[in-house]
């Protein structure tokens, strides 16, 4: 090895200074052209929701292609990028895709990378609830930037934090489960139920939606069980549930990788699972590919995701066609695609109205109502409430066996105009959903008795009895 041969430390200082000068030059970013609007799409590429990466990007970019002349670089791979996006003369540049993993630390570094290093003006995203709480806090301290939530289901960002530059064009985790408790009471005849939910904020929020509906119509939640996240063996928690002959049914808000594990543990404790005694949240619908567990829950009612797969309305058909034009293989009825599409479309509408201006002008110009594919109420118009949170139609589902033998979810109900506050039950001053929140109280939900039956994708006039 060569031996470094320096005469004095002064040479070292000069050397260091030279290196430093070069580094400064290399890292100082060139002043970005102020004309294009810089947009970042924040999603997950790892962790429990890593599969949402292409879906989210595809959804948002499909909206840009449809309404802002965007051209996809690769029709099979949305993350390859999109060029030529232009809103009435204002170009939009997609500066980067965030890659989170459903935890806060990565959300922090990704948000800073997108907003500060890549200098994005607008963020569409994030994907998951805990990341959204961080982004909502970040939004409050960066009022000149705009944030449109992707598909996050946490309640806090718009109910508690509610920054003026934060928008959500879809329901939260509690809203997604609107109506399912009433269906359990009326169609399954449940009066007493137990609920098992993941011991963290999404589990509680999702469970809150079920509890509010079920207790609102007169049902009783007799037991609440909370397996911690990352539980290896669900057996001790499943044992705490009352046996099936002592209870009418079980609500489940166990998600991620725990759904299948919990259901298998249930079968080993109590015998074959009766789908009429189980009501799950959207994670039951995600079980579709699990060949061992999904067949066991065929026939169970599950909470939705704000989407209505197979809905046969003109607005829905138009939406599907528009997405498939850009990305022919993208699953249009998937919530990840749908919610990011609506976010992208809202951004385009906002830029049209503000004439390309950003900051407070864009925040004022972003639409307070849009026409998303699966909205039917108000003539197909979805309104935002005072906290810029969507009041969205919800569609409870049922797990069914498709004609080709695959397991999917069919829409069975239509719940109109579900607001985040559940008719006053959730307020900014009320404690957030938790282990004891909300309590089981007979507080009527605004849609009680108004849930319509949906058959084969058509909303009938029949109300669920």
């Amino acid at each position, binding site marked *: 090895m060569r031996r470094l041969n*320096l005469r*004095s*430390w002064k040479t070292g200082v000069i050397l260091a200074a030279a290196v430093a000068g070069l580094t400064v030059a290399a890292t100082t970013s060139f002043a970005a052209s102020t004309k294009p609007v810089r947009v970042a799409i924040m999603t997950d590429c790892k962790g429990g929701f890593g599969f949402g990466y292409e879906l989210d990007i595809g959804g948002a970019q499909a909206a840009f292609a449809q309404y802002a002349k965007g051209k996809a670089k690769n029709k099979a791979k949305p993350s390859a990028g999109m060029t030529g996006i232009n809103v009435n003369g204002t170009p939009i540049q997609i500066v980067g895709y965030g*890659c989170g993993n459903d935890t806060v630390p990565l959300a922090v570094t990704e948000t800073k990378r997108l907003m500060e290093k890549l200098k994005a003006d607008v963020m569409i995203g994030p994907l998951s609830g805990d990341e959204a709480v961080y982004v909502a806090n970040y939004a409050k301290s960066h009022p000149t930037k705009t944030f449109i939530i992707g598909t996050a289901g946490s309640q806090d960002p718009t109910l508690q934090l509610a920054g003026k530059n934060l928008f959500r064009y879809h329901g939260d985790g509690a809203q997604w489960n609107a109506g399912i408790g009433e269906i359990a009471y009326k169609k399954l005849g449940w009066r007493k139920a137990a609920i098992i939910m993941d011991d963290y*904020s999404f589990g509680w929020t999702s469970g809150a939606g079920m509890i509010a509906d079920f207790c609102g119509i007169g049902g009783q939640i007799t037991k609440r069980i909370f397996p911690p996240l990352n539980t290896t063996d669900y057996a001790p928690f499943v044992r705490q549930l009352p046996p099936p002959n002592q209870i009418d049914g079980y609500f489940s808000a166990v998600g991620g990788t725990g759904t299948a594990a919990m259901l298998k543990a249930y079968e080993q404790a109590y015998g074959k699972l009766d789908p009429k005694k189980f009501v799950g949240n959207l994670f039951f619908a995600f079980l579709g590919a699990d060949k061992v567990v999904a067949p066991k829950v065929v026939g169970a009612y599950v909470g939705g995701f704000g989407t209505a797969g197979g809905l046969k309305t003109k607005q829905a058909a138009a939406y599907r066609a528009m997405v498939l034009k850009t990305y022919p293989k993208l699953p249009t009825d998937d919530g990840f695609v749908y919610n990011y599409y609506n976010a992208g479309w809202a951004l385009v509408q906002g830029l049209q109205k503000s004439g390309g201006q950003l900051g407070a002008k864009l925040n004022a110009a972003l639409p307070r109502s849009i026409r998303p594919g699966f909205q039917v109420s108000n003539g197909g118009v979805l309104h935002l409430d005072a906290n810029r949170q969507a009041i969205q139609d919800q569609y409870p589902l049922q797990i069914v066996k498709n004609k080709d033998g695959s397991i999917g979810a069919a829409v069975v109900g239509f719940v109109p105009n579900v607001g985040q506050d559940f008719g006053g039950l959730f307020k900014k001053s009320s404690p957030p959903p938790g282990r004891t929140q909300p309590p089981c109280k007979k507080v009527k939900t605004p849609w009680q008795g108004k849930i319509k039956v949906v058959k084969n994708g058509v909303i009938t006039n029949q109300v669920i009895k």
Partner: protein
Amino acid sequence: MNPAAWTRRQQLERAIAFGALVLVVVWPAVGSSYWAHTILVQTFFYGIAASSLIFLSAYGGMVSLAQTALFGIAGVIIGNLATKGGPGGVSKGLHLGWDPTLALVVAILMTTAIGLLFGLVAARSAGIYFLMITLTFSVIATYALGQVTNISGFSGIGGINEYTPGWIGDILEHPNRLYYLALGVAVAVYALIRYVIRTPFGLTLQGVRDDPIRMSSLGYSVPLHRTLAFGFAAFLASLAGILYVWWSGQIAPGNVDLPETINLLAMAVIGGLVRIEGAWVGAFAFIIIQNYVRDFHVPGLSFGGTLFGGSFNTIIGIIFLVIVLVSPDGLMGLWGRIFDSRRGSRWRRTPTQRGPSAPGRGGETTAA
């Protein structure tokens, strides 16, 4: 500090250090803002956390995986004490709304006390057992922060950077203040560690590292010294944790889980577990890799990802592996070998390899 008495290597090192220090002091004025307020600030406070780990490993002979947990605990404590809003409501936590300076002092004291408690429990283990028991602390911290929703909960506590002490002011408006504060604390921590290792306590600690049986037969209490060292390292980790929550505003269980613990260990190992300077070198290298490797694709071997279809974690894992295989003393060890290869002797401050409990034992003579 007589420059004439320095060896060539010390001259070079000190020159580079001086140059680097001047550079980071003037950086906010001349360099990119993203580098200043994301990369360099993170280097400063993650370097402090890594230095607590390296202090314990280089001078105490204990590789601790609990530093991340203590880092997070300090953040949670100050989050609970300083933020306002009442329990529940805007975000989880107690939101006691104390004066931020008082909250700062209490957070540091409480974390140090918790560190001393951990140390008391772990002090009689050594080597791999110590590693494992500190890993257990890390797991307890993750579960406690996640499930005890009164103090944190899974989304954690947010908005902490709105409640900084008056003498710092509003760091959201003036991010340079946090930059210089972090830089100042990092320099102070470095000086403090260099001072402590020369005190009688530090020397005894190094004796305990080298040969606990002999030290104990000389009358020194080995568990006491280890416990105190652990408490000191907890103090350092708490400083890093508080700077982190002022930088990011949010602390959550995801900040103290197993991947984060391994990240901090990776920073320390990449820098080198034998020299304190390695903490900041390793932190800087790790953050650069994390930031820039994401967009890096190995030509011909990407398969749709960065390497063989994987994400940047594969690259980080490979870099980590290469460093441990080639130079177990990390980048600082490589640097040291540039100078000592002719003489064939190791840089003197490497802990002598005696007993099964010392880290990095043996094998250095065969490495390239």
